[in-house]
């Protein structure tokens, strides 16, 4: 028996505008545990890229260390990739984004990589508004080192061996809103209908887009006393509403009752439409959103969906007032003034 996925696909498999099927966006066969939530997220990324007609070579996948950070090997095998030091993916992303503003930066990180060793980097990437999609595959556990609690694990939950978690969790989504991230969503790997439009929105968003995706670890954190298990999340999941991604040139067809829907224009002309479950929730108001998340938390719910969005803010490239042409494509003459200028400067110094 081999684990090579046969190359042939369904002869009637749908093709996108580029003439590609979703299988053209696949990577190697996953070596993560069977049933890992991360694989579902990979599949959702594949589906999003397929639907957005993205050319793989215009994407850079960046990651750190951890199960989550292995995942980029399992999708978009025609894209650029950089697997960095533990927790240092945001720095690499910042540098890469400055060097070539034309690529779509897709950072894939985990709760250990972002909420512990890399939390400083995480904060500053948001502060600087790096134009990227930052996906946290959040399973509340260190799966690669046999299931210790991570910093996002909930206070009341137990690990696989029955030990209590003694510390309160860090909520990366609310933290991101407070730090000024301009696109923040939470979702669940087991709910693709919600997840795919959110990833598509994040990819078309300009600025820092954070997706905190709860992604159950089937091996170490999917037991009855876990709060990041498939069953727990399915039971406690409360969506802020139904998000739809509306591509450029398409109209939103459904008409919603007044006050129940929000329409968000993304910078490339596509739209996100959110049909809210609660009139009081407003994803465009950071303060209200934070309160709402807290309220739901008190009720014991895990609030998912598009939590906050600001589609008019500046990103890092704009703030730094960088050239339209990516630095990586500028000719050396433009970047380097040459030896004559150097001699002049040296003369001044002598």
């Amino acid at each position, binding site marked *: *028996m*081999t*684990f*090579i*996925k*046969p*190359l*042939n*696909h*369904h*002869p*009637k*498999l*749908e093709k996108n505008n580029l003439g590609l099927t979703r*299988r053209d966006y696949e990577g190697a*066969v*996953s070596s993560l*545990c*069977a*049933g*890992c*939530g991360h*694989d*579902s997220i*990979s*599949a959702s990324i594949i589906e999003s890229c397929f639907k957005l007609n993205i050319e793989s070579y215009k994407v850079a996948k960046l990651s750190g260390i951890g199960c989550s950070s292995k995942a980029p090997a399992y999708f978009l095998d025609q894209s650029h990739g950089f697997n960095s030091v533990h927790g240092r993916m945001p720095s690499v992303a910042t540098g890469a984004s400055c060097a070539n503003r034309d690529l779509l930066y897709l950072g894939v990180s985990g709760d250990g990589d972002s909420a512990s060793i890399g939390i400083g980097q995480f904060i500053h990437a948001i502060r600087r508004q790096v134009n990227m999609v930052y996906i946290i595959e959040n399973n509340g556990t260190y799966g690669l080192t046999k299931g210790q609690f991570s910093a996002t694990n909930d206070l009341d939950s137990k690990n696989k061996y029955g030990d209590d978690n003694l510390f309160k969790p860090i909520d990366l989504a609310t933290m991101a809103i407070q730090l000024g991230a301009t696109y923040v969503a939470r979702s669940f790997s*087991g709910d*693709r209908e919600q997840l795919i439009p959110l990833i598509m929105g994040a990819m078309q968003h300009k600025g820092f887009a954070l997706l905190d995706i709860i992604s*159950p670890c*089937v091996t170490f954190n*999917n037991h009855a006393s876990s709060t990041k298990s*498939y*069953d727990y999340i*399915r039971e406690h999941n409360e969506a802020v509403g139904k998000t739809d991604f509306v591509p450029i040139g398409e109209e939103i067809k459904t008409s919603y009752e007044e006050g129940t829907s929000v329409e968000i224009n993304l910078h490339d002309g596509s739209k996100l439409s959110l049909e809210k479950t609660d009139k009081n929730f407003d994803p465009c108001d950071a303060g209200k959103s934070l309160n709402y998340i807290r309220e739901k938390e008190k009720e014991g719910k895990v609030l998912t969906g598009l939590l906050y969005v600001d589609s008019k803010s500046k990103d890092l490239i704009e703030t730094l007032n960088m050239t339209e042409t990516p630095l990586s494509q500028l000719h050396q003459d433009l970047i380097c003034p040459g030896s004559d200028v150097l001699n002049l400067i040296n003369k001044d110094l002598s």
Partner: protein
Amino acid sequence: MEDKKYLFKRNNTWWVKVAVPKSLRNEFGFDLRQTTGESDLENALKYRDKIVESLKSKFKRDGRELSLSSAKYLEKTDISNPQYFHKVVDCQYACPAHTNVPEYIRLIAQKKYTDAYMLNWESNVFPGILGRVCDRPCEPACRRGRTHDKAVAICRLKRVTYDHKGDIESYLPEIPSEKNGKKIALIGGGPASLTVARDLLPLGYDCTIFEKDHKPGGLMRTNIPSFRLPEDVLDEEIYRVVEMGATLKTNSYIDKLSPLLKEFDSVFVGTGAPKGKDLNIIGRSKASKNIHIGIDWLTSIAFEHVKKIGKKVIVIGGGNTAMDCCRSAIRLGAKDVKVTVRSPYSQMKASEWEIEETQEEGIPILDNTSPKEFLYDDKGKLCGMKFEKMTQIEIDGRKKMRPTGEEIIFECDDVLLAIGQENAFPWIEKDIGIEFGDWEMPIVDKLTMQSTHPKVFFGGDSAWGPENIIWAVAHGHQAAISIDNFCSEISLKERPDPMTNLVSQKMGIHEWSYDNDISQAQRYVVPHAEMSKSLKDLKTEVELGFDEEMALEEAQRCLNCDMQTVFEDDLCIECDACVDICPTDCINFIDNDTEEKIRDKLRVPAINLDQSLYVSGKLKTGRRMVKDEDMCVHCGLCAERCPTGAWDIKRNSYKESNTLSKRITTKEIA
């Protein structure tokens, strides 16, 4: 790709098939079928809707229509019904004798040729013969034709089991030395009778075969030329049955049935459809010396009564017999041979591969050409034929051939007529209780093969007209069961159930008992003998068969459709791992709905209605797992990537029961 909903191809013709609603299956069976009479898909599509409508109208009950897409939501699939997974194994399901194709192909891949041969022998009796000349209903059904390009060369692999097998003596069933005292007469020494004998001899029956020629084999011997089926292959497989203890009476034409009824406990009629149709047009009687009935002429060649033919030969007819006639004529020395067919080329009845081989040998096929007159010279010798060109028109949705008025004359020395065969039972007395229905055909029970005379059973072409060898074998098995029941005074309706088993193939972590690394290669082409040699000799076999290397490569193309994906609702945590890994997007988790809507909503819509949907019970989220069986390549990756073992790969072995089932000593392959 065109929408082939409701359509399937059999021989060279498109048929319409409509599934029968579950509630009516007792009455109608699994599906209703009707031919469109078209070999061209585009034309078949024109008739499809009308035929579907007329077939569906049969489901009407008390004026109320029992629609196929009734508003009912899908129910959980009952996989305990052996028919469910049986239908997934397309080749085995399509084979009239239900030969377990994937199993023998795996045995070939393991170089266990003798086991592979015996597995075939048990279900189809003549693997060496069928491996050369079977009509292969399995190949158009082969899943590979849908998922890739062309079907696995199943028939040629069957031949490999014959060509490479070892000594099978010890595998053969034991024949009891003490007989059970029941005497069975088998009229006709063709495949149907031989199958009945093979099935009854190990049970202690005393079987006597009456053969009109001096050698047994029926049309297999007389009508299939040696260049397609060598005599030694025929003899080996035919005499193997005879040597199991049958009494063979050759040169024994039966001209009365009633004496046999007195002497024997039961009589099986396997006399085939031995009468070639004649063409009574102007000049037929005058020039009769050089006008031959195709099947009789082929018989004369087989028995070496005919050794030559004129230089210019016209063969009339578009079926396989016509192809055999023209190719034989070339080998007897004819220089100018042509085939004329009344219908358009696309509607010829011959198998695609036989038409191809005929054309490869340089024989022209002239279609829309209808015979009008035999021409002869003053001495009364045939010298040519007059034809009229035809054209096909459509009246009220039915196709009709109409003459165009254009006439052509071809010179010829001999004409071979291959325009069809008929049954003929002049030897059956009309007053002994065997009733005949339309077209003088005996009334035979579809299930039991029993005629209206309880002691007399029919099978093969003699039952319902010309079919082919594999159907004759299938009939033979059923007739043997009936005869055994009849002689044991058990109701004929009590048929033994098929023997089925569904066994997990998981051997350990990442270990499965079969190889899922399917070859992506194209179908391998069978090497042919040098044409310069084969066209000169009637006995040089044209197809050489796969050598071992090619056979092993071809075997790797099989998708192992008997390796079933079995889903356990309670274990599923809906992690979607199977959905992601499935290379052909068969697996879906979806809210329940009517079949029509579900088929439309799947990841890839399931438009092939011949293939089932595998539906789970309600899962935790309220959704259902729905798998479209159509494109599954049985790679087992769903089970490999399932964290909880909700998916398992289980081998579905399905063995059609015959009377031998319990007594045969073929090693069970675990």
